[in-house]
């Protein structure tokens, strides 16, 4: 005896036509999926300067993203800059970013500016989903391995693998649109709300500085990787609002000391550029306690530009004698 479903289908006069329609729909979806993901991917690569030939590469998270302006830096130094910065990426993510950039670029950069901050070894406070930002680069082996271990389930992993548009999200759409438009502007307009942080307790709880040995290892291995790539490494500590540092002064000092000593061991030539003493007391430069506003970005970029020109001159034997 035939199963009911089979006889239902035999009696369904529109079955064949609907199958054709559904197949056409699936094809249309695949086509849209490929087209949109290609558009998004290209924009993102432009935004981060991937597959390029920049001579300066910046790697970091939102601190660096909002503290240094790529077009201004390029204009002031005359150097081509790639700004590979993403929101919420921890030290492990930054390591993947460095490896990813070097595996895709057409020409190796000569200088790498790696963002550091007192929370470099704090596991908490950054996005636990930052790995999602790597999804567009699943075709890269390092990134693919990272996603395989980070994805919640096998289902999620294969969904990202086969439905390309699922690799993107609102943040990546933003990056892609900016990449296509060639805009890197800092839109965090405004000044830190001092009244909101007037209570010292709220500053202490803003984001406690802790020390995770795994992240320390990631930091060391990132530096070792960069040393192997034979690039000049600059560890840039972007400004942090002074009251926030004062609230955890001891931990801050300890963190900076650890960064210095680990850097000396893993990559002896690495230089630390600490912009905290110079700018942290100027409240007008901050959007919030850890992020610069456009004015803050302008002055910090100027300072980084001067530093880059200085070391280039030194390297070319034109420095002060």
């Amino acid at each position, binding site marked *: 005896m035939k*199963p*009911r*479903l089979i006889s*239902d*289908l035999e*009696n*369904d006069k*529109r*079955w064949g036509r*609907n*199958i054709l*329609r*559904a197949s*056409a*729909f699936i094809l*249309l*979806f695949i086509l*849209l*999926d490929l087209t*949109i993901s290609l558009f998004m991917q290209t924009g993102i690569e432009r935004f981060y300067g991937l597959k390029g030939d920049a001579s300066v590469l910046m790697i970091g998270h939102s601190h660096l993203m909002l503290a240094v302006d790529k077009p201004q830096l390029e204009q002031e130094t005359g150097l081509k800059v790639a700004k590979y910065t993403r*929101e919420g990426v921890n030290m492990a993510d930054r390591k993947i970013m460095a490896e990813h950039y070097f595996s895709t670029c057409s020409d190796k950069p000569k200088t790498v500016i790696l963002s550091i901050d007192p929370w470099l070894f704090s596991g908490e406070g950054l996005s636990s989903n930052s790995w999602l930002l790597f999804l567009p680069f699943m075709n890269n082996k390092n990134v693919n391995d990272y996603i395989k271990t980070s994805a919640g*389930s096998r*289902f999620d992993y294969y969904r990202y693998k086969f*439905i390309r*548009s*699922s690799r*993107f*999200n*609102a*943040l990546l*759409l*933003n990056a892609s649109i900016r990449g296509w438009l060639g805009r890197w502007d800092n*839109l965090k307009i405004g000044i830190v709300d001092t009244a*909101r942080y007037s209570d010292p307790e709220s500053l202490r709880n803003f984001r406690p500085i802790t020390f995770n040995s795994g992240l320390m290892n990631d930091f060391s291995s990132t530096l070792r990787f960069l040393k192997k790539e034979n690039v000049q490494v600059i560890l840039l500590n972007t400004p942090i609002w002074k009251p926030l540092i004062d609230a955890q002064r001891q931990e801050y000092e300890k963190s900076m000391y650890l960064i210095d000593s680990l850097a000396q061991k893993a990559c002896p030539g690495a230089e630390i550029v600490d912009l905290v003493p110079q700018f942290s007391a100027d409240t007008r430069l901050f959007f919030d306690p850890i992020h610069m506003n456009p004015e803050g970005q302008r002055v910090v970029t100027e300072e980084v530009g001067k530093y880059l020109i200085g070391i280039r001159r030194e390297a070319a034997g034109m420095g002060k004698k």
Partner: protein
Amino acid sequence: MLFNSFEYFVFLPLVILAYFSIPFKWRNPFLLFSSYYFYMSWKWEFGFLMLITSLVNYYAGLKISSSADRGKQRLWLTLALIVSLGILVYYKYANFFIAEGTALLHTIGFNIRQSYLNVILPVGISFFTFQALSYSIDVYKGKLHVEKDVVQFLLFVSFFPQLVAGPIERATNLLDQFKKEQHFSSDRFLEGSKLILWGLFKKVVIADRLASYVQQIYASPETYGGSTLFLATFFFAFQIYCDFSGYSDIAIGTAHILGFKLMQNFNLPYLATSIKDFWHRWHISLSTWFSDYVYKPLGGNRVSKPRWIFNILVVYLVSGLWHGANWTFIVWGAIFGVLYVLEHYGDKLLTKIKIDAFFYRSKFVHVLRVILVFTLALVAWVFFRAENMSDAWYIVTNMFTGWNKLPYLGSSAFETVLAFSLIILLYIIQILQYRGVVSIYMGSTVVPRYLRWAGYAMLMVMIAMFGISSAQFIYFQF
């Protein structure tokens, strides 16, 4: 098992395949088994509560129909009401009454230690309780023949597409559909799938995107200015609409594939031109339930004016309480009740001074009325969403002031702008629906097929890109 989970999209095709493959006599037991599996995947103990409520109403129905004595019939109906509502009250309202009772005793000088019951609210308990009760009441009123087949009755209460968040179906509509053999139809499959896709889009792309902003602002409203509070409330209005109507669409689409017709639960509520109109378009299955089983038995509008006002207020207060054990829900219901009454007398006044014709026919006034109703609904939504009365009061008294500062745009301004753009997209689609250009609920449309299919493909891409998965539906808690 959530409609927006991977498990559901494995469960559903398996159920469809098996349902249409097995002989008719096994289909209802199979659907019953699937429905209990679906429900017990949350917490298996909940299944027994639903079973008790169902069996009590089933038995009461049998007893009511077998007795000619009206007193005995009333006794059986009362028993069904006490047991069903007793379970609901115990799980949903006991702690609320304990807290309020203790507070009251404190006020009058009794010092009693407050201790709460350790109970978890079963998902969708208000929905299946009301659905089961509607059967007993209809049998008692003689509107419905008794259902002797226990499997069919249990299935009527537990039918998985609409079990946890409605539409609250009537036995007069759904029960008989289980008696008829359904045949698989590829047309129905495609239509149902489109509705599921649309519901999923509203839930995972719009509602869940708005949820994170709303959650952030409503968690500490006192730290934000008026424009931010307004934006959060505006977002919540669309969050709850997309969340709940999205669920209903998936429910209706799923049932449609299986061959069952569920009632429409939403009909463009934010295009309503009056409060009355709003309630004809919002959560239609609940509004009609209250109308049939609370409002009409109280006398409806065939009573004196003061009594009519009382009836209206009772219906809306009970409706508020149905949503949750909190004063905020009660006030939410009261606001709509008061607005309903005021609107009624306002309309009478317009007729009396003879400007009603202008008021109802002018397109400009029509748009103004839509905006006014939406704004009033926004005020009511504040109470629905706020954690407590003091937060709600703070938001209501501040959301229309302090607009000289731009609203806070959330941790990602782009996300917030995207959310706003999605609301505009939704509104455009709804206006096209309103004007009959597009049809979501299996109706005819003037949009060419290739454009529609491109639209569906785009919806799928947007779900893949912007979908935020696995967030619970808001109405599950009711």
